[in-house]
């Protein structure tokens, strides 16, 4: 007990500091200074054409002012059709996408699937995530022509990448012992998934699904811009005709629906905890 005392003498009376995350001084300061230098340099390369901005302000003002007098009536037929198409696309793509995502998520969870299956499923997810919706939509519009079919396929494809990845991560972080107990009773694989895994990931699956429905609806408004059907097509037409008041009406409807979905998903997620 006497040897540590001398060590203690050395330590007492001196301030204590948390050891830095990067131990080497020179490396730490190089990284910090390098980051700020890059940040300053990066900002300096962004060119701003101030006279163009000045001209644009007028157009921006019109756009914003249009929200004070949104026009729901003039194009009400087009808006209604576009809305119905968007909702159909959203629902169909979400159901199909989620349905395909679940088996892929199981395959992409290392603690459930054998290595070859895991690699295949992870590749599918990587491809789906690498290709942005707009790019997929342009390709599918080229194949299937204008209309909601291309949009539906695009959203289904995007849902797979999103939902499978996040669900697989939840499966991988589940409580291993609960699943082990089911296995120990002599359950077959399908029963093991149903009893040991599914109850653990169900709240997350429902929460993610609600979130994805929300995203799919918003995306359906964007996909119309490249011709893949839905309310986006109506919105695009309104912009092309400089009918900002109609565009404002459409945007307001989108905002209201997204907020309603957000509210609904909040309630559902609270209930399934």
């Amino acid at each position: 007990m006497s040897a540590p005392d001398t060590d203690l003498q050395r330590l007492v009376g001196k301030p204590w500091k948390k050891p830095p995350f990067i131990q080497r001084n020179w490396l730490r300061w190089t990284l910090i200074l390098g980051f700020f230098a890059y940040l300053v340099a990066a900002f300096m390369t962004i060119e701003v054409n101030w006279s163009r901005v000045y001209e644009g302000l007028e157009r921006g003002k019109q756009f914003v002012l249009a929200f004070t007098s949104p026009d729901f009536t003039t194009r009400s037929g087009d808006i209604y059709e576009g809305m119905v198409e968007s909702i159909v696309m959203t629902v169909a793509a979400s159901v199909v996408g989620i349905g395909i995502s679940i088996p892929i998520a199981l395959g992409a969870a290392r603690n459930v699937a054998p290595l070859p299956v895991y690699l295949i499923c992870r590749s599918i997810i990587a491809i789906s995530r690498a290709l942005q919706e707009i790019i997929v939509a342009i390709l599918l519009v080229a194949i299937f022509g204008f209309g909601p079919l291309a949009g539906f396929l695009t959203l289904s494809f995007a849902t797979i990448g999103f939902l499978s990845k996040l669900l697989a991560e939840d499966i991988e972080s589940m409580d291993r012992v609960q699943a082990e107990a089911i296995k120990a009773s002599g359950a077959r694989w399908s029963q093991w998934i149903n009893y040991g895994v599914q109850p653990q990931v169900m709240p997350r699956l429902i929460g993610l699904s609600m979130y994805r429905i929300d995203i799919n609806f918003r995306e359906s408004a964007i996909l119309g811009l490249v011709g893949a059907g839905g309310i986006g097509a109506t919105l695009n037409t309104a912009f092309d005709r400089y009918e900002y008041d109609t565009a404002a009406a459409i945007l307001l409807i989108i905002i209201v629906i997204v907020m309603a979905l957000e509210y609904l998903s909040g309630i559902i997620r609270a209930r399934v905890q």
Partner: protein
Amino acid sequence: MLRLEKLVKTYKTGDQALKAVDLDIPEGQVLALIGPSGAGKSTLIRCINRLVEPTSGKVYLAGNELTELSAGALRKERRRMGMIFQEYALVERLTVMENVLSGRLGYVGFWRSFLRKYPQTDVDEAFRLLDRVGLAHMADKRADELSGGQRQRVGICRALIQDPALLLVDEPTASLDPKTSRQIMRLICELCKERGLAAIINIHDVALAQMFVQRVIGLRFGAIEFDGPPDALTPDVLTTIYGEEDWEATIEKIDGEDDEAAE
């Protein structure tokens, strides 16, 4: 009933958790497995039902060799080995009844289990077992609403509804208070006696083990250091299993508790 022959488990990291363990357990014997953390107790019982694959050696359950079995045959044999876990390992979001019935998964087909349409005999047996441990009124509660002691009782029901010949019990009392620990140990041992089950109970609490079991195995660094009746556990023996420490208090404590129980 259960026989282990030269059972070896070497983990991928190179840690040798079990070094050629030989063990023979007769019908209906309740055995406590003691030893320091990391001695391989948990690995040993998991190698028996192959939740952990043994590296080499043989496991015989009632004459059937388990280590060479195919996946399907292993499932059939697992039905004969009920397992009880340290942190209860109930599926938290399922009801008490679903947890108990999950012990029948090895006997029913997928669709029956998926739709929760178990045979009436299974449901009756589940209620009988829950009633036996005093939890029949909790059947429709979710498992995460229960207290630790109640959860472990459900865990016991789940193991027993398998109609096992052997119970593998992994630290059943490690997360429970002293009183509940004793009640759970008593319950496990009573049920084993009633049904003539053999059991291997991993346990940290030496005094508790001595109170309830007929035979104690001491494991150290993956090898059996002691095999004998509970009253043969002397301070010297505990020192060989756990290392140097003042063991008198541990053993005296049991004597004191026995007096208490007698009063």
